[in-house]
C-alpha cells in the first residue's frame, strides 16, 4: 500500500525545504525525505554554524586590537574554541528545529530516511513506497570530499573536512587549508583568530578565484596583516600523512616546497550526492560534470522529475537552491514563474573584511570586450567606517559606458554581505548607476560608499 503525495522532495536542505513550503502554499500535498537533519548542509554543517564561528573570530579580534582605542580595555583575553563551537551548535540546532516547525506549519510530511528514486515518480524509503502524482524533486545536494588520489583521504584527525572542523574541541596549532574559495578563506579567518598558524593553499593564481582581482587582493592584504600564509598558483602534488602531522608537497611557480602542519582542512570542492539515489533506473541522466541534467524549467530527463540546488549545477549556493525550489514549486503547480536570472546571483565570503559581488568581474568585462567604466570608493573615505575602525575595503562598480548598465559590482567591507543587495536589486530591475545615485542614501552609512562608487563611475564622486 503506497502513500500518495502531489510532490515528493528528496532532501530537506535550503533548496528542498523551501520548495516544500512554496508547494504547500500553492495547495499541493507535499512530502520531504531527509536522511539527516532538516536544513541540510547549510543549516547544520555549512553557512549557519560557520557564521557563528566567524562572529566569535570577529569579537576575538575586536577585543584584542580595536577595543582599547574605542575606550574599552579588557583584561587578559582567553579564547575557548569549544565554547564558540557550542554557540554555533545551538544556532544550528535552533535553525534546524525552525525548519521542522515550518514543515509542520505548512502541513508538509517529513519522512526520515534515505529516499531512492524509482520509475514512474515513485520513491522508496526503508522499504516503504511513496508515489507522487505530479512530481518528484531531487534536492540531494553535496557532501565533503578529500583528495585520495594525492594521499589526502579524510580521516577525521589529521586530514579533516569542514564537517569535522565545525565540531573541533580546539583549534589545531597549525593548519593547512587546501582551497582558498569562500569556505577556505572563512576557515582561515576563524582558525587564525583562535590562534592557529594558517597556511592557505590555492591552485589558481589568486585567493577567492571567482572574485574580482581587486577584491581578492584586498582580502589577501588583510590576511597578510594577520600573518595568514597564502600560497597561490600552488598545487598540492602529494601528501605524507603521519599520526599527528601531515607533510604536503606543494608545487608553486616552478619550485617545490613542503609544508608540515598538524592538520589539513580540505576545502576544495564537494562531492555530488548522486549515488545510490536510483537515478539510473529512473532515467535521470547526469551531465559530463556529474550534475543532474536539467532543462530551463529544471526538469530532468525523467518525466515528472525535477532537480534543484547544488545537484542541478553551479553556482552551489544556498540562495540559488532556495530560489530554484520556489521556481520548481510554481512550475509543478502549473504557474509560469519568472525565469531565474543566473547572472544575478550574489556571491559572498563572510570573513573579515567580507567580500561580496554581483555580476561580472573586471577580467570578465575585458574578456567579453565590453566597453565599461569603473567607479570606486574606498571605505577609508567613509565616515561611518572610520567611526567603527573598519576602513578596509572598497566598493567597485563596473558600468557600461554607453547606457550606465551595472555590469558588475564588488564590495570588500565589514558588512559587504549586506551592502551588496542594493546592487542586486538594482541589477534585477535594470536600474543604471544614475538611479543608484538618484536614490538618497542616509548619512552616515556604509551604503553611501555604494552611491559614491556609482557617482565615481559618472565622474562626479563627492568625497574623494
Amino acid at each position, binding site marked *: 500500500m503506497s502513500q500518495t503525495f502531489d510532490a515528493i522532495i528528496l532532501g530537506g536542505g535550503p533548496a528542498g525545504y523551501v520548495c516544500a513550503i512554496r508547494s504547500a502554499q500553492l495547495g499541493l500535498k507535499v512530502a520531504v525525505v531527509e536522511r539527516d537533519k532538516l536544513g541540510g548542509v547549510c543549516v547544520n554543517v555549512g553557512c549557519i554554524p560557520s557564521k557563528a564561528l566567524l562572529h566569535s573570530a570577529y569579537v576575538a579580534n575586536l577585543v584584542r586590537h580595536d577595543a582599547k582605542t574605542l575606550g574599552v580595555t579588557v583584561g587578559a583575553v582567553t579564547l575557548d574554541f569549544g565554547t564558540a563551537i557550542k554557540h554555533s551548535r545551538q544556532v544550528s540546532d535552533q535553525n534546524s528545529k525552525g525548519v521542522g516547525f515550518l514543515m509542520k506549519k505548512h502541513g508538509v510530511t517529513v519522512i526520515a530516511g534515505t529516499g531512492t528514486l524509482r520509475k514512474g515518480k515513485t520513491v522508496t524509503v526503508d522499504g516503504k513506497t511513496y508515489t507522487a502524482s505530479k512530481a518528484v524533486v531531487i534536492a540531494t545536494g553535496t557532501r565533503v570530499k578529500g583528495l585520495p588520489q594525492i594521499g589526502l583521504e579524510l580521516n577525521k584527525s589529521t586530514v579533516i573536512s569542514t564537517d569535522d572542523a565545525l565540531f573541533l574541541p580546539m583549534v589545531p596549532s597549525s593548519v593547512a587549508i587546501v582551497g582558498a574559495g569562500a569556505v577556505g578563506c572563512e576557515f582561515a579567518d576563524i582558525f587564525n583568530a583562535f590562534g592557529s598558524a594558517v597556511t592557505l593553499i590555492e591552485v589558481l593564481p589568486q585567493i577567492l578565484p571567482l572574485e574580482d582581482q581587486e577584491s581578492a587582493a584586498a582580502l589577501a592584504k588583510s590576511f597578510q596583516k594577520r600573518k595568514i600564509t597564502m600560497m597561490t598558483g600552488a598545487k598540492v602534488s602529494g601528501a605524507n600523512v603521519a599520526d599527528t602531522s601531515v607533510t604536503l608537497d606543494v608545487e608553486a611557480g616552478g619550485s617545490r616546497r613542503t609544508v608540515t602542519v598538524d592538520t589539513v582542512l580540505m576545502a576544495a570542492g564537494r562531492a555530488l550526492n548522486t549515488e545510490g539515489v536510483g537515478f539510473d533506473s529512473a532515467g535521470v541522466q547526469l551531465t559530463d560534470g556529474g550534475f543532474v541534467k536539467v532543462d530551463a524549467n529544471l526538469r530532468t530527463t525523467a518525466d515528472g522529475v525535477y532537480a534543484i540546488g547544488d545537484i542541478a549545477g553551479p553556482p552551489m549556493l544556498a540562495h540559488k537552491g532556495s530560489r530554484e525550489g520556489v521556481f520548481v514549486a510554481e512550475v509543478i503547480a502549473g504557474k509560469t514563474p*519568472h525565469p531565474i536570472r543566473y547572472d544575478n546571483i550574489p556571491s559572498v565570503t563572510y570573513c573579515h573584511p567580507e567580500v561580496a559581488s554581483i555580476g561580472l568581474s573586471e577580467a570578465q568585462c575585458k574578456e567579453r570586450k565590453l566597453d565599461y567604466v569603473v567607479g570606486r570608493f574606498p571605505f577609508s573615505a567613509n565616515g561611518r567606517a572610520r567611526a567603527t575602525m573598519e576602513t578596509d575595503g572598497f566598493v567597485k562598480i563596473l558600468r557600461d559606458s554607453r*547606457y*550606465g*548598465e551595472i555590469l558588475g559590482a564588488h564590495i570588500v567591507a565589514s558588512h559587504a554581505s549586506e551592502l551588496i543587495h542594493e546592487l542586486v536589486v538594482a541589477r534585477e530591475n*535594470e*536600474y*543604471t548607476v*544614475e538611479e543608484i545615485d538618484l536614490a538618497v542614501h542616509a548619512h552616515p552609512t556604509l551604503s553611501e560608499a555604494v552611491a559614491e562608487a556609482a557617482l565615481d563611475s559618472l565622474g562626479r564622486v563627492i568625497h574623494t
Partner: protein
Amino acid sequence: MATKVLMEALSPTMEEGKVLSWLKREGDTVSSGEVLAEVETDKAVMELQARGSGVLRKILAGDGATVEVGSIVGIIAAADEDIGSLLQADPSKQAPPQAEAAKPAASRPPPKPESPAMAAAATTAPPSAGRVKASPLARRLAEDRGLELAGVSGSGPGGRIVKRDVERAAIRPLPVAAGTSSGYEDVELSQIRKTIAKRLVQSLGPIPHFFLTTEVDMERAADARAHLNGLDDGPRISFNDIILKAVAAALTQHRDCNAWWLDGKIRYFNEVHLSVAVAVQDGLITPVIRNAHMKSLRQIAAESRELADRARNRKLTPEEYTGGTFSVSNLGMFDIDQFTGVINPPEAGLIAVGSIAEKPVVVDADVTVRRRMRLTMSCDHRVIDGATGARFLQTVRRMLENPLAIVW
C-alpha cells in the same frame, strides 16, 4: 508572458481595420501563427494571426468593431497570468471606437523626464500614450535606438519592458538583417531631407509618391527565355522571373533605391530582398525573395512559384512576407498596359509591370513589330528623387533589353 494582440497593418496602405469575426473566443488556447480573427482592411479580408502562444484571455474589440492600426484588440497570456496591469497600463490604446475624434496632441500627458539628459530626448519623442512600464535601462536603450516603447511588449514582472524586450523589438522589423551588421547602413536625415520629407507629406499624404514610366523592348529577353526553357526540364522561367532578376541586379548598382524610410532616418540595404506582389482570393500579399541579388534565375523562378502557391493557399508565415527592400507588381497577365503601384512601406520603391504586347516601333528608320513592355516605378520622394529613380529604371531597362548585362 502576455502578448498584446494588435491590429496589424495587413495591407501596405491600411490605417484601420474592421474586425469581421473572431475565430477564437476568450479562453481558447492559441499558439503563435494561428489565425485569431478575420479583419477587413481597406483592400480585402485578411487574417489576424497570433504573435504569441497562450490563452486568448481578453477580446477588446468585438466583431464589427473598427479600430486603428496599432490598437490592442486582445490579450494572449498564460491561463492564470495577471493581465490587469496590461489592461490598465495602456487605456488609450484600447481599441478606441472609430467615431471618436483623434485626440489633440496637447491632451496627452507630458513625457516624464528621467534625468536631465533624457528630458531633452524625450521632448523630441513623446510617448504615444499613457504610462509605459519599462526599466530605466530599457528606456535608455529604446531612446538611443529611436524605438517607441509603447509598441514594445514587456516580458518583465507585470509586463514591464526590460532590456531584452527592447533588443528583440529593435531587430524585429529586419529579420533578414539580424546578425549581419553590414547588411545595411543607416543614414541620419539631413535638414534638407527632413524639410523635403515634411513638405512632400503635407502635399501628397503619408507617402509622397511619384511615378516614372519607361517602355522596354523585350525581344531579346523573350528570345533568351525561349532558349533557356528549351534547355532542359528545369522550372519554367517566366517573364516576371527575368524582370525580378534584372531588378535585383540593378538594385545592387543603385543602393539609393534599395532602402527603407524609417522614422528619422533612411536605411540603405546592401542586400536585396524583393517583395513580389501576389493576388490572392480577396486581396494581395507580397512574399519576399530573400537575397534575390545572389540567386540564379532558376532559383528565383523556383522560389517565386513556391511562394506564390503558398500565398494563394495562405500558408505564408509573417517572416515570409515582411522584410522586403523593394517591390515588383505584375498585372501583365491581365492585359494591363501600364499601371501605378502603391508603395509597400517602409520600402521606398516599387516597379509595376504591364503586359508584353507587339507594337509597331521605329527601328533604324524602319517601322517594325517588336514585343514591348511598360514598367512604371513608384518612388517615395522622401527617399528617391526623380533623377535617382530614373537612373535606376534606365539600368533595369538596359538589362532587360540586353539580358547579358544582368550577369555583367
